[in-house]
C-alpha cells in the first residue's frame, strides 16, 4: 500500500475547485465539485471529487482511514472545508473478538463497508491525504502487496460481516469510476518499496484506537473555522495545559503545527527562510534515490542488530504520538518542525514513523552531515539533549537491561547526528523484529506491558497525572464506540488494573460484589393470597404503569427528541414520595431502549445515580464516570474527566441519559455539583440529557443559587399524589385478575391512603398486610377467602393508629401517676413545661391521694426516664438530675383519655 507522507508534516494546500453551488441555504454552506490538494513545494496536484475513495489522516500513518467521499462542502468564507464520507473499515479497526466472524483469513488490503452509525461521517476536508483505488467485490484477491488497491467484499455493521449489497457499491462505483491513486509523493508511494515492513503483517498491535483519530479529525474541523491568530493563542494555551490535553487535541495541534501556523514556530522556520523550499526538494530527491536500496539495507540491519534492543520499540512514535500527553509530546515535536526546514531527514527520524524513512535517513547521512555545520544552532543542541538517552543506548549497544540511561550518565558523542540516525534505524528494526515475533507466536500480550513500563520510566518529565489522563482518555474513547467498544482491538494501553491500584490501593481488585446464592430455591407462591401478595409487593415490576400516561408521554417525548437530535437538556421532576417518579422514568428508558434496539432511534446510554446512595455529593462524579467508563478515580479527577468528556466533541458519541434521583442531596455550599450537572447538557458536544428527581416542587427556587437554577431551565414536571381512583386502578392492574380482594375493601384502602398521602407504596403495603391478616384469621390457610373490609380495617388500624394511647394504658401504675402529676403541674403553672422537682412534688401528693406508698426520688427519676425513653415525655439531658425540664409529647387530652378507665 501507499505510504502517504503525512509524517513529513509538510504543509498541504487545499483548494476548492469548480464552481460552488449553494448546498444549504440555511446553514450557508456551499458544495464544491472537487478539491485540489497540493503539497507546498510540489508540482503535483491531487484532485479529489465526490465519489472517489480517499484516505483520511489518522494517527496510524501507515494505515490511514479509508472512506468514500460523498460530498464536499464549506462555508461562505471558503476557509472551512468539510467533507461528507462513507467510512470503510480496515480489518485492524474491527474489534479483535469480532475478527473471527469473518470466517477466513483476511486479505491485508481488504476493507469493509461500514454500516454502523456510531461514526461521525462529517470530516474535515483538510485531513484528506489522497485517493486510493478500490475494486468491486467480484474481483478475486490478487497477490498480496502487489498493488495499491483496496478491496471491498463485505460490509460490517458492528455486529457481523455481511455480504455487501451490490446496490450500495454500484451507485458508488457507477458515479465515480475508480481512479488510480495519485499519492502526494509519487516515488515514495510505491508499495513495493517496503515489503519487509508491510507484507502480510497484521497491523493490530500498536494501533491506537481509531476513534481517537477520528475525534482528532473533528477537533481540527471545529478549529478550522478560527482565524489563524486565534489558533495560535489556543495553541499556546494547550501547551500550558499539558496534562489535561486529550490525544485528539494533540493530534490536531500537531497538524496545525506542521502547517506552521503558530507564530512561534513560524519564527523559527524563518531562521532559514531561503532554504525552506530547497530543503524539501532535496529531501524528496534523496528519498527518491534511496528507495531502491532500502530493502537491502533494512534486511541487512535486521539481521545484524537482532534482538539486543527489543525494548526499544517502546519508543515507537505511533504510541507516543497518540498516547502521550501534550506536554511531553510538544517539545520533540517542535523540534521536528524546526528541523524540518533545516535538516528534514533528522526530523523524519524524530517522528520516526516508518522504517522506510529511517533507513533513508541513514543513507542520507552524508547529506546531513554536510548540512549540519552550515546551520549550527542552539536549538539543535537542545534537540540533541532530548535525544541523549537514546544516544546512550547507542553507545552501549549490547546492554540489554539498561536501554534507557538517565541523561546525566549519557556520554556525549561527537557525531551526534550519525548516532542519532543509526539509532533510529535500530529502533525501527526492533519494531520490525517485534512485529515478526508477534506473527510467530501470535500473541501480542507478551510485550505490551514491558513496552508500557519502559515508556513511562523513560519519560522523565511525564507526571503521574498525565499518565492517568491518557490511559483514561483511551478508555473513555473505547466506551464511546458503542456496542463493539468493550472488546475492541487490543490496543496497548495502560493496564487498568495498575491504575485501580494507584487510586484505591486498598480495595482488592478482583472483588465482585455479590450475595451468596441460596442452596434451596425460593418457594413460589402457593395460593391466591400469596400470589396476590407477590404481585402487590412494591418491588414487582408491573406490566405497565397506569395513571401516569401523561407524564410518561411527556418524558418520553422529551428524551426521545433529545436523543434523536443529538442535543442535550435538563428536566426537573418533583413529587411527593411514592408517586411513581423513578418508576415512570425507568419505564420511559425501557421503552426508549426497546426503540433503539429496533433501530428507530439512535443508541444511547442510560446512567442512574441517586443522591441518597452516595456518601458525599462529590461522589456523583465518581459514580457517573464509573458507570460511563468503568474506571475508578477520585472525585476531583472524575470531575475533570467528565468536564473534558462533555465539553469536547467526539465522533461516534452517543447520547447519555443521566437520571439523578434525590437531587436535593447533591446540594453543597458552592453547589458546584449541581451546577456541573446542569451545565454539561448546555455544552455543544455534550449530548447529555439530565433528568432530575426530587420531592419538593420549589427546590430550584429554594436551594439553588441563580446560576444553577437558570441552567436547570423551566422544563419541569410535577407528579401529583395519586387520587383514590388512581390508587384503586394501580392495585387492580397489579392484581391483574387475581381475585383476592373485595371491591369495597380496595376502595377503602385507596380512599384512606389518598386522603393521607397518596403514596402508592403505602397503599400496596396495606393491601399486603391485609392479605396476611386475612390468611391468619382463617382457620386453615387454604380456606381463606377474599380479603374483606374487616381485614383492611385492621391493617389500616395497625399502620395508621397512634400507639401512644395503648402505651399509656399499658404503662405501670407509677408511670401513669407520673403522667397525671405532669398534667397537674402544668395546670398549676399554666405552662407546658415543668421541672422534674416540681412534678415530683405533685406526684407525691397524688400517690398519697391514691393511697400508695410514696416512692423515693431516685425511683421517681427512673419512672420519668422510662417515660422519656418511650417519648411519652420529652426530657432534658439527665445530668441535670432533678432540675431537668419535662414536657409532654402527647396532648393532655390523650393522656387523660387513656387514663380514664384506670381512674374509674
Amino acid at each position, binding site marked *: 500500500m501507499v505510504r502517504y507522507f503525512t509524517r513529513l508534516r509538510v504543509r498541504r494546500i487545499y483548494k476548492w475547485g469548480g464552481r460552488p453551488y449553494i448546498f444549504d441555504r440555511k446553514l450557508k454552506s456551499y458544495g464544491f465539485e472537487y478539491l485540489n490538494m497540493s503539497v507546498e513545494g510540489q508540482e503535483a496536484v491531487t484532485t479529489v471529487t465526490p465519489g472517489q475513495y480517499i484516505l483520511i489522516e489518522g494517527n496510524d500513518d501507515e494505515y490511514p482511514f479509508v472512506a468514500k467521499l460523498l460530498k464536499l462542502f464549506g462555508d461562505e468564507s471558503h476557509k472551512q472545508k468539510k467533507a461528507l464520507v462513507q467510512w470503510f473499515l480496515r480489518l485492524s479497526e474491527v474489534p479483535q473478538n469480532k475478527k473471527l466472524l469473518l470466517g477466513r483469513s483476511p486479505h491485508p488490503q481488504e476493507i469493509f463497508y461500514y454500516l454502523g452509525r456510531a461514526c461521525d461521517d462529517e470530516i474535515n476536508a483538510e485531513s484528506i491525504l489522497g485517493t486510493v483505488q478500490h475494486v468491486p467485490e467480484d474481483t478475486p484477491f490478487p497477490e498480496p502487496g502487489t498493488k495499491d488497491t483496496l478491496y471491498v467484499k463485505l460490509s460490517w455493521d458492528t455486529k457481523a460481516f455481511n455480504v455487501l449489497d451490490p446496490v450500495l457499491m454500484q451507485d458508488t462505483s457507477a458515479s465515480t469510476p475508480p481512479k488510480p491513486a495519485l499519492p502526494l509523493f509519487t516515488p515514495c508511494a510505491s508499495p513495493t518499496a517496503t515489503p519487509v515492513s508491510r507484507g502480510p503483517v497484521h497491523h493490530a498491535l500498536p494501533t491506537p484506537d481509531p476513534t481517537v483519530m477520528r475525534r482528532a479529525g473533528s477537533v481540527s474541523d471545529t478549529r478550522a473555522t478560527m482565524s489563524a491568530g486565534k489558533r495560535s493563542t489556543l495553541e499556546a494555551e494547550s501547551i500550558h495545559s499539558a496534562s489535561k490535553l486529550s490525544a485528539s487535541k494533540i493530534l490536531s495541534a500537531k497538524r496545525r503545527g506542521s502547517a506552521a501556523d503558530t507564530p512561534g514556530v513560524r519564527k523559527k522556520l524563518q531562521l532559514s527562510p531561503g532554504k525552506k523550499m530547497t530543503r524539501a526538494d532535496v529531501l524528496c530527491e534523496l528519498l527518491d534515490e534511496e528507495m531502491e536500496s532500502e530493502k537491502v539495507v533494512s534486511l541487512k540491519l535486521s539481521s545484524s542488530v537482532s534482538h539486543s534492543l527489543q525494548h526499544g520499540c517502546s519508543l515507537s512514535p505511533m504510541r507516543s504520538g497518540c498516547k502521550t500527553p501534550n506536554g511531553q509530546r510538544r517539545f520533540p515535536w517542535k523540534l521536528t518542525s524546526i528541523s524540518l526546514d533545516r535538516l528534514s531527514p533528522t526530523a523524519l527520524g524524530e517522528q520516526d514513523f516508518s522504517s522506510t524513512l529511517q533507513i533513508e535517513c541513514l543513507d542520507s547521512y552524508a547529506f546531513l552531515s554536510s548540512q549540519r555545520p552550515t546551520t549550527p544552532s542552539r536549538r539543535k543542541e537542545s534537540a540533541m539533549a532530548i535525544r541523549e538517552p537514546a544516544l546512550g543506548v547507542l553507545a552501549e549497544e549490547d546492554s540489554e537491561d539498561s536501554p534507557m540511561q538517565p541523561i546525566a550518565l549519557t556520554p556525549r558523542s561527537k557525531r551526534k547526528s550519525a548516532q542519532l540516525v543509526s539509532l533510529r534505524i535500530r529502533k525501527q528494526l526492533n519494531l520490525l523484529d517485534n512485529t515478526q515475533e508477534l506473527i510467530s507466536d501470535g500473541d501480542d500480550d507478551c510485550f505490551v506491558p514491558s513496552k508500557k513500563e519502559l515508556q513511562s520510566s523513560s519519560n522523565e518529565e511525564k507526571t503521574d497525572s498525565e499518565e492517568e489522563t491518557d490511559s483514561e482518555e483511551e478508555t473513555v474513547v473505547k466506551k464511546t464506540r458503542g456496542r463493539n467498544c468493550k472488546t475492541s482491538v487490543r490496543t496497548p494501553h495502560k493496564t487498568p488494573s495498575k491504575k485501580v491500584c494507584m487510586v484505591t490501593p486498598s*480495595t482488592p481488585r478482583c472483588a465482585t*460484589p455479590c*450475595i451468596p446464592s441460596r442452596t434451596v430455591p*425460593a418457594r413460589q407462591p402457593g395460593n391466591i393470597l400469596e400470589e396476590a401478595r407477590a404481585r402487590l409487593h412494591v418491588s414487582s415490576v408491573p406490566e405497565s404503569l397506569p395513571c401516569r400516561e401523561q407524564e410518561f408521554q411527556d418524558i418520553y417525548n422529551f428524551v426521545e427528541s433529545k436523543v434523536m437530535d443529538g442535543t442535550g437538556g435538563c428536566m426537573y421532576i418533583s413529587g411527593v414520595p411514592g408517586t411513581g417518579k423513578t418508576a415512570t422514568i425507568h419505564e420511559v428508558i425501557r421503552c426508549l431502549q426497546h426503540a433503539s434496539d429496533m433501530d428507530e432511534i439512535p443508541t444511547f446510554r442510560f446512567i442512574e445515580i441517586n443522591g441518597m446512595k452516595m456518601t458525599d455529593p462529590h461522589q456523583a462524579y465518581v459514580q457517573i464516570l464509573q458507570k460511563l467508563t468503568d474506571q475508578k478515580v477520585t472525585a476531583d479527577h472524575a470531575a475533570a474527566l467528565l468536564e473534558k468528556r462533555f465539553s469536547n466533541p467526539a465522533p461516534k458519541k452517543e447520547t447519555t441519559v443521566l437520571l439523578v434521583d434525590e437531587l436535593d442531596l447533591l446540594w453543597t455550599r458552592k453547589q458546584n455539583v449541581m451546577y456541573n450537572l446542569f451545565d454539561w447538557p448546555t455544552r455543544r458536544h455534550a449530548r447529555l440529557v439530565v433528568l432530575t428527581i426530587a420531592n419538593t416542587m420549589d427546590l430550584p427556587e429554594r436551594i439553588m443559587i441563580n446560576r444553577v437554577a437558570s441552567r436547570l431551565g423551566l422544563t419541569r414536571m410535577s407528579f401529583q399524589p395519586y387520587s383514590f381512583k388512581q390508587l384503586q386502578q394501580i392495585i387492580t392492574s397489579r392484581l391483574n385478575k387475581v381475585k383476592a380482594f373485595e371491591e369495597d375493601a380496595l376502595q377503602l384502602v385507596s380512599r384512606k391512603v389518598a386522603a393521607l398521602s397518596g403514596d402508592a407504596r403505602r397503599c400496596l403495603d396495606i393491601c399486603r398486610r391485609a392479605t396476611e391478616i386475612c390468611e391468619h384469621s382463617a382457620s386453615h390457610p387454604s380456606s381463606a377467602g377474599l380479603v374483606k373490609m374487616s381485614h383492611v380495617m385492621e391493617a389500616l388500624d395497625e399502620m395508621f393508629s397512634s400507639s401512644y394511647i395503648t402505651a399509656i*394504658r*399499658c404503662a405501670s401504675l407509677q408511670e401513669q401517676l407520673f403522667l397525671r402529676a405532669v398534667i397537674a403541674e402544668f395546670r398549676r403553672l399554666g405552662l407546658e413545661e415543668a421541672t422534674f422537682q416540681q412534678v415530683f412534688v405533685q406526684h407525691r401528693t397524688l400517690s398519697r391521694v391514691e393511697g400508695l406508698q410514696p416512692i423515693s*426520688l431516685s425511683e421517681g427519676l427512673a419512672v420519668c426516664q422510662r417515660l422519656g*425513653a418511650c417519648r411519652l415525655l420529652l426530657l432534658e439531658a439527665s445530668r441535670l438530675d432533678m432540675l431537668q425540664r419535662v414536657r409532654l409529647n402527647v396532648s393532655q387530652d390523650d393522656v387523660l383519655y387513656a387514663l380514664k378507665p384506670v381512674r374509674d
Partner: protein
Amino acid sequence: MSKRKVKETHMPVGECISQVQMILRERFCHQRLPEKPVGMESQHKHLLELLRRTAVHGESNSVLIVGPRGSGKTMLLNCVLRELLEVKDVNKNVLPVHLNGLLQTDDRIALKEITRQLNLENVVGDKVFGSFAENLAFLLEALKKGDRSSSRPVLFILDEFDLFAHHKNQTLLYNLLDVSQSAQAPVAVIGLTCRLDVLELLEKRVKSRFSHRQIHLLSSLSFIQYLDNVRSQLSLPQDFPDTKFYDEWNDSIKTLCEDQLVVDVLQSHYNSSKDFRSLHLLLMLALSRVSASKPAIKPTDLLEASRVCMVDSKANILHGLSILELCLIIAMKHLNDIYEGEPFNFQMVHNEFKKFLQRKSHSIHNFDKPVVIKAFEHLQQLELIKSMDSSTAKIQKEYQLMKLLLDHSQIMEALQKYPQCPTDVKQWAMSAFG
C-alpha cells in the same frame, strides 16, 4: 456430676444451694430465652410469618418492633430467629446481620460491620477494606446483583433503630429500605426501638420506603400474672438432681408468694415497673441471701432486697456529711424557701449560716470562712449542689450561682436518720424561716 447422679436423692444442703443459685442466676442474668414468649403470641406469630416469608419465598420486608425498655423485644426476636433457624431449608439460607445503634454510631462503621458480617469479597480476614464510598457502592452493587429467587435472604437486625435515624442523611436506612422495596436481593429489615415516635424521625422518602409494619410490645400484664411469673422464675426445674430438696424449695417458694409481706413488696414493684429486668434484679438480691444455714428465701429477704432496690441514692451521701456541710445544706433549703427556688451563691449561704450561728446555735462554734468554702466545694463535688453558670472561670467562687439538687423531703429524712445530730440544728431545719 456422675457421682451425684448415683446418689441422686441425697446431696448435702450446701451442694443443693449452690446448684439452686447457679440455675437461678443463669435464669436472671444470662437472659436465657424462655421456651415460648409469654403474653406476646400474636406478635410472635406475625414476626415469625414475616421472616419465614423472607427466608422461604424471598419476599423483602421491613418491620419495626416497638416497646418500652425491658418489654422483651430482643427476646421476641431471638425466639423467632431460633424458631426460624430450626426450619430445615431456612437454616443454611439466611444471612443474619446484627447491628446496634449504640455500637455502629455512624454509617461508615455500620457499613463496615455489614460487609464484615456478610463476608463479602472485600473482606480480608476480619478487616474491611476500602473507603466509605467504596464500601457503600460495593454493598449496593452486591445487593443489586441478587434477585428474589436465587440469592440468600439477608436479615438486617437494627437494634436501637432510632439511633440509626440520626445518621447523616439516613443513608443507610434509605438504602436498606430501598432494597427492601425493589427487586434486588431479598432482605428483611428489622428495627428494634423503644421510641414510640420512631416513624417521625424518618425522613419522608425513607419513611415512604418503610412498609409501616410496627409490632408493638406493650405488656398488659396483670398483677396475678406477675405473681405467677415470679413463682415460675424462682421454681426449680424438674430435672433438679435432689428430689427432696426440689420439693422443699418449690414448696417454700409457693408459700413465699402467698405471704402478704411479699405480695406487698411485689405489688409496689409491679406498680413501679412491669418489666422483668427490674424484677430479676430484686430476685437476684433475695437469692444471694440464701445460704446453707438458711436454705430458703424468706419474706424478710425480699423486703430487704426491695429496700436496697428502692433506696434513695442521695440518702447515703447525706448521712456521710459533716455537721458543717449539713448546716450549709439547711441554709440552702431556707434560701430555697425564701426565694422560691431561685439560685443562690456561697455568700448568701454563708450569711444564712452566720445568722444561725449568732441567733440560735449553742453547740456549733464559729467556722472560718475558708473552712466553710471548703465544705461548700465538697458539696459541689458530691453534686449535691450544681453551678448554674456555664463559665466558671469568670466569676469568683463565692458569687457563683448554685442550685440545690435535693428535695426537702430528702433533707428532712436525712436529718432524722443522721447520727447524733444536734437538736438546735434539727430545730433550725424545721423552723419555717431561718
